[in-house]
Every structure is written in C-alpha cells, then in structure tokens.
C-alpha cells in the first residue's frame, strides 16, 4: 500500500517559483482521492522558513534539503538527494514542475527510480485509484492520455500556468523537517547565474503575449510591441522568421521548435500563421491576429482579426488600451 503522494517544489533565488504551488495543488487533489498525506520536497539554498508556504497549498509535511551547494540546479547533485528521500517511501505518485529544471530533474529521476514519466502534463485524473495523465504531443497538435503499468510509480510533471492553483490558505501549517544532505562527488557544477532583473515576464508563464513576425520588418520596430506589452503587462514573443532574422533572441521564439505557450491572450502581429507557429500558440485561450493580408492563415485560428497595416494599427491600439486602463 502506498503511504503518500509526493510533490517536488522548485526554489530559486530565495523563493518558491509559482509553479511549485500549482504542482502542490494538483498533487493535493490526487492525495485526497487516494486518502493519503502529501509530502513535499524542497531542495535549494536558504529554503528555511519559506518551506511552510508549501503547506498553504495542501502539503502536509515538507522535507527540506538546504545546502549552499544546492543553490543552482545541478542534476548530479539534485537527483540523489531527491531519490534518496523518495526511496524511503512507497509513494502513489510523484509530481514535479515541468519547468526548465523540473523537466530535466524528472527525466533523470525516472531513470534512477526505474519508472515511467509523463512529461509536461495538462490534466491528471484519478479514477477508482487509477491515475491517468494527459499531455500534448507534436507541440499540441494532438493530446495523449498515459497510464502506468501495474506496480510502476507514476511520475508526472505539470506544465506551468495550466493546472488550477488553489488559493493560499495560511492557516494550513505544514510540518517541516530538515533532512541531512549527503552530497555525492560530482563532475559537474554551475559556474554562474545571470537573472534578468528587469521584471520581464517569462513567455511560458505569461497571461498575455504580444508576438511579432516577419511583418515587423526590423529589430527596432519591436519597440511598438514592447510599448503595447508594457500597457498590457504582457511578454513579447516572436515567430521563427523574426528570430532567424536576428531581430529577437531565440528565447522569444514561439512554435514547434520554440516555446509552447498557453496564455489567456495571444496577439499575433505580422505573423502569417504557419503550422509550426500555430503548434506553439494554438492552445491560447484567445487569439488576436493583426495582418494586412486578409488571406493570412492565422485568421482561420484567430478569435478576433484585424486587417490593417500593423505600423498604423499597433500604436492606435496601444493608445486605446491606455485610455481603457485609465478609466477603469
């Protein structure tokens, strides 16, 4: 018999990343369905008093591995620390964030624990004690339901920004236990981290994205999208054509070979809507397309279409957004 459900948190630069709370909320639902306690694992440096925050989202007991050497994610160090905790239990399931580090950790951990991993899941169900997870394949062109073999430990990484995050309940106090950290000899290390402090919104976590394509014509023209994004509190993305042209960094690319995003609102500006681009943003809740070509394929996917020259339309739209924000 299983004795717990496990939820692994991601701690960076002194705070839990929000996806940790989404993962805990999802794991809590499964723990409730199975009538089991939820154990949290928090690895990092300076996790200390923050660990109780996981309790607000339903974690009953948090196991903390706190060490200066664990400041940054290094697979060789993190995997044994997490695996040795899990190996002491008989979990019914292990949940992790499908963040950059979480996807990497979960894959190596699945190999260490010799089990199956459903990566980047968007839905999890637990029916009559059987866990099933749904994940996008072919960059969202299709969705797959996965199930585990008898006796295999379900490992599930959850796509950020998709699972419902329960409201923080500060009255829920988790028990916190520090675990001794016995780090293995490692042949790899983090040499340095550069965190963007400009408050730029990460594409995969953004509620609103304004994306530019070849129609933007030049790098400096993205200034008008940046302005619009600022008004909307949005992140700025790009098509492959804009990235290949060197107008935007590769980290801004949305699509099958870029980031798969799922904002509430995606505004595609001067983007034709190639299948590889649609693959990356097709699950957005609302899509707006601004394109001067009424035949552009993006219009067949857009909830709202504007047939206009973007250089005329975007400044006018930005102004209207500003007006609306100042009146409400």
């Amino acid at each position, binding site marked *: 018999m299983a004795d717990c459900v496990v939820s692994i948190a991601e701690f960076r630069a002194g705070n839990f990343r929000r996806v940790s709370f989404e993962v805990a909320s999802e794991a809590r639902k499964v723990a409730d369905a199975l009538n089991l306690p939820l154990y949290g694992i928090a690895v990092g440096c300076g996790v200390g008093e923050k660990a109780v925050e996981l309790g607000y989202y339903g974690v009953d007991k948090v196991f903390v591995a706190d060490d200066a050497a664990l400041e940054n994610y290094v697979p060789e160090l993190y995997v044994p620390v997490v695996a040795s905790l899990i190996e002491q239990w008989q979990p019914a399931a292990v949940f992790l964030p499908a963040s950059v580090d979480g996807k990497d950790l979960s*894959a190596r951990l699945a190999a260490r624990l010799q*089990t*199956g991993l459903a990566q980047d899941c968007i839905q999890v169900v637990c029916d009559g004690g059987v866990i099933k997870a749904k994940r996008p394949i072919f960059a969202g062109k299709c969705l797959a339901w996965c199930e585990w073999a008898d006796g295999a430990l379900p490992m599930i990484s959850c796509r950020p920004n998709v699972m419902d995050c329960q409201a923080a309940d500060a009255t829920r106090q988790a028990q916190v236990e520090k675990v001794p950290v016995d780090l293995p000899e490692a042949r790899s290390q983090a*040499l340095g*981290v550069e965190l963007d402090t400009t408050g730029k919104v990460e594409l995969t976590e953004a509620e609103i994205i304004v994306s530019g394509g070849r129609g933007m014509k030049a790098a400096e023209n993205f200034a008008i999208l940046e302005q619009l994004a600022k008004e909307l509190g949005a992140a700025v993305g790009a098509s492959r054509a804009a990235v290949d042209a060197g107008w935007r960094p590769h980290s801004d690319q949305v699509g099958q070979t870029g980031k798969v995003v799922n904002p509430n609102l995606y505004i595609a500006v001067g983007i034709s809507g190639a299948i590889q681009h649609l693959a990356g943003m097709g699950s957005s809740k609302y899509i707006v397309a601004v394109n001067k070509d009424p035949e552009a394929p993006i*219009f067949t996917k857009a909830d709202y279409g504007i047939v206009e020259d973007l250089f005329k*339309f975007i400044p006018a739209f930005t102004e209207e957004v500003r007006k609306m924000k100042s009146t409400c």
Partner: protein
Amino acid sequence: MNIVVLLKQTPDTESVIRIAPDGQSIVTQDLKWIINPYDEFAVEAALRLKEKHGGTVTIVSWGPQRVVESVRTALAMGADKGVLLDDEALEGSDSLGVARALAAAVQGLEPDIVLCGSRAVDYDLAQRGPMVAELLGWPHLGLAVSLESDGSTVTIERPIEGGKVTLQASLPALVTMGGSHAVWNPRYASLPGIMKAKKKPLEMKKLADLGLSADECGAQAAKIRIVSLEMPPERKPGRIIDDGLDTEGKAAALVKALHEEAKVI
C-alpha cells in the same frame, strides 16, 4: 575527440497529425520524415567540436529502415559513421526502454562526449538525454545554447526562466541541445558530402548485439504507455473586426471586445 550524437527521425514539422483507427497511435503513412530538429543542432555542434579537436562523429539512431535516410543525411553533413538499432522489439518501448538500448550502444563506443536534442518534436518526451546519462552514471548538461570544450571539460549556457546559467562538466559527459535554428544554424549536406556519405560505414544492430533483450527494453518492460489519443478542440474561426471603421475605430472595438466579451484585458 570521440563524439556520439543520438539522433531520432521524426515526422516533418509541417505534418498534419491524424489519429489512427486504434486510437492510440498516429497515422504514419504519407508522412515525410526528417532528423528531429534539435538532434540536427546536435549534429552541427558535434561537427564544430570535431573541427576544433579532431576525432570522429558517430551517429547512433534507432527505428525502422526508413531511418537510414536520416543517418545518411547526418553523414552527408560530415559525420563519420552510423549505428542504427533496428529491432522490432523496440516498438512500444517507453523512454526508459529506449534509453537502456541507447546507453548500451553508447557504452560500446566509449565516447568522450554524447550530444542529442533536448527534446524530439514528435512525442515531446524530453527524457532521452538525462535518462541515458543517468544509466551511464555520467553528468549531463541540458538545453545548451552554447557549447565550448577544451578537450577535458565541456561548458554550456542553459536558459532558465528569467535568466541563464553557465554549467560545466568534466568529460565524459552528455549534453542536450536547446536554442533554435538561429542559434545553431545547422549546415546543409553538400553534394560531395552526399556522394561521400554513401560510402561511410553504417552498422545495423539488434538488441541482442548489445547484450539486451526485449524484456528489458521492449513493450513488456514499458512502465508507461499511451492509452488513447484525442485531438485538441477545434478553434472556431472568429470575427474580423471591420464594420467600415477606421484604424482608431477598429482599435477601440478590439479593446472593447477583449475587455467586455473575452474579459482578458
């Protein structure tokens, strides 16, 4: 430097995906096949390492005979030799099963470094690299957008949410590639390259040649499987905001629609 690239053949990114009558797989007939783009970045990175340090680039791939074409393409780009694991027993394998086979193939080649894509654009599992590294007991550095090696260590930059990290490992190590076409700009196979590739060695292997069996790597060993597929909800074509309005009028109408109807701003 002895370099190995793990290469998967995937459907062309242009492909329209359809669910097969079994409800668990996709229709593969009529698909065009390509090298997984992220693995193509790995081929490029491997060739650059070879240009700097000398040595050989070996392509290790798995799948049916059609995969030969992708391995030959990598050889035409400049890789030296190929190994193709073509064993029916690998059909229905999960990531761990495939990783076991690949780790065994890699072990036999005794490389200094293994490169592969951070994910494949078909099933988006993002597991092969880390799993192979774990099975080999090697360090791995994931999602490289740059790669430097002095012959005994490898250093990469890894983008993380809101920043980047520089990671280093001593060799042998495994690196998975991130970035985009703009970052790696993989070279095309030249015509002379294509001619030469035809004569380069390509070895066919079965699981048994690696000392493995179907119960360790095949469908029977799978811990996880796809039980059903579904298509994402069709998007209904929306509305063109026009109504004979001028630019400002359309801008105002769009703001109103997003604010009052969609309630997303």
